[in-house]
């Protein structure tokens, strides 16, 4: 047990401490890659860095939209998979596939699918005589294309979590509700969602944390463009380290992203605690 916990500390906690230290240093090509203490200058720079705020906003926008969309679609898929259908196993396998593929693999695929004008969607649009869509060339659209690609990949994961939750809800609850004359929407609203709420919380927390660290997808699909409209905090931090060789600032950015994520996850938990049904309080 001890070695595993030590390894966990080494992999997760130490880097954060290291970043905390590094964020008080300047370590760039101008310092010949040697760290030099600069106090809080990096944090000051961060606060004044419009690009950081823009990226933070874009990362948040991406995270909230894709997680929201994934929840809705995931719930729909979970409800579908929870029905006793013919070929359910096959269906489950097929819907799981997008999740299993490496992000970089399918990001490359999406780059081609979103191609203007040779991608399948634009080909279809052209066939019907509609103008093509610049999926990756218009700042107003590109981030949505990214949400689309991410939703495609991650919905199966959310769906599976929710499916696990659905399977813990006893069928007689629905039967009882049906006897009392509840329709499908009412039983979804009154039974499924409240009972599913812990699972939804888990899905939201996990996905939100992952979405706020979005990197693979951005780097391969758009590299942050056009006009920097899809750059995420992680990509900005990566560019600062690997392209600008500005390690102090990169560490500052990553620590800031981490704090932001903590703040949001804490917010999500609070929201859940406040909004969850009262009876759930006694459950744990």
């Amino acid at each position: 047990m001890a070695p595993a916990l030590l390894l966990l500390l080494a992999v997760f906690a130490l880097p954060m401490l290291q970043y905390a230290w590094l964020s008080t240093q300047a370590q760039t090509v101008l310092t010949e890659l040697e760290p030099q203490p600069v106090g809080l200058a990096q944090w000051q720079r961060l606060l004044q860095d419009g690009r950081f705020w823009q990226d933070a906003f874009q990362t948040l926008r991406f995270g909230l939209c894709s997680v929201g969309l994934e929840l809705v679609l995931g719930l729909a898929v979970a409800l579908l998979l929870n029905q006793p259908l013919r070929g359910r196993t096959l269906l489950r396998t097929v819907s799981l596939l997008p999740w299993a593929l490496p992000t970089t693999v399918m990001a490359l695929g999406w780059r081609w699918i979103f191609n203007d004008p040779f991608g399948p969607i634009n080909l279809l649009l052209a066939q019907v005589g509609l103008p093509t869509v610049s999926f990756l060339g218009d700042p107003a659209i590109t981030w949505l294309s990214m949400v689309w690609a991410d939703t495609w990949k991650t919905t199966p994961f959310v769906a599976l979590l929710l499916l696990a939750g659905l399977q813990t809800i006893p069928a007689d609850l629905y039967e009882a509700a049906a006897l009392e004359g509840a329709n499908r929407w009412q039983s979804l609203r009154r039974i499924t969602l409240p009972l599913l709420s812990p699972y939804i919380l888990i899905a939201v927390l996990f996905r939100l944390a992952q979405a706020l660290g979005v990197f693979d997808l951005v780097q391969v699909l758009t590299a942050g463009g056009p006009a920097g409209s899809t750059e995420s905090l992680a990509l900005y931090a990566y560019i600062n380290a690997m392209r600008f060789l500005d390690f102090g600032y990169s560490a500052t950015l990553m620590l800031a992203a981490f704090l932001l994520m903590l703040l949001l996850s804490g917010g999500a938990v609070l929201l859940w605690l406040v909004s969850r049904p009262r009876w759930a309080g006694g459950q744990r």
Partner: protein
Amino acid sequence: MNRLLLILWSLGPMLWQLYTSFRPNATLTGNPMQGGWTLEHYQALLGGNPPFWRYLLNSGVVGLSSTLLTLVVAVPCAYGLSRLGRKTARNVNVLVAIAAAFPYVLLFLALLQLARDLHLGNNLLALSLPYTGLSLPLAILLLQASFRDIPPELEEAARLEGLGLWQRLRWVLLPLMAPAIASASLLIFLFCWNEYPIALTWLSRADLLTLAPAMARIAGASVFTVPYGGFAAATVLGSIPLIVLVLVFQRQIVSGLTQGAIKG
């Protein structure tokens, strides 16, 4: 109807890539309905330097070694935690769960420094170390849950029969954990196979690249045209092992994910 929609949504993009990968580049950017079929993209990939299967092999090696290492570390830890009191274990588990959800891309810079200081770069087996660290939280949560599912009497019975800790693990607990271990292994393997940022910074030798960074860095066939067909063929080749894996182990993957949700 719903089912059809789901299948179309899930498979559509992959089928388009499959289609693209068999079409000559010229027809892709010209009239798409014309032109024949070709294997040239696959031939180019498999005959490249290094050949594409090399990336698959590298990913496989890293995936397997990381999975093994993770299990070796995670099983005792999960066992220990599962035998702790509920309350203590829960406090530890909250931390472990936070680690499991951590957007690990934020760790790449610190891990890169680690690789430099300890000379771990460009070594597939050394890459297993960070991967093990990153997969541990999930593995611990999953395995711990299934350790808790084993009635304590079974182990006590074995103790009374004079079985030592190792014997109990080997003959009683681990055989019962086999399904959980299989699920956890698959999830770990998938994670390692797909991991990108760490591999991107830890590997710079072309012949050692794993699939994910290789895909991102993939060199086109020519500077003159955008090698859409080649990209598509690469995505197809890169997907096949995983599709096979999912088809064969669908049940274990699903149970691993759902176990994680219920118990985690």
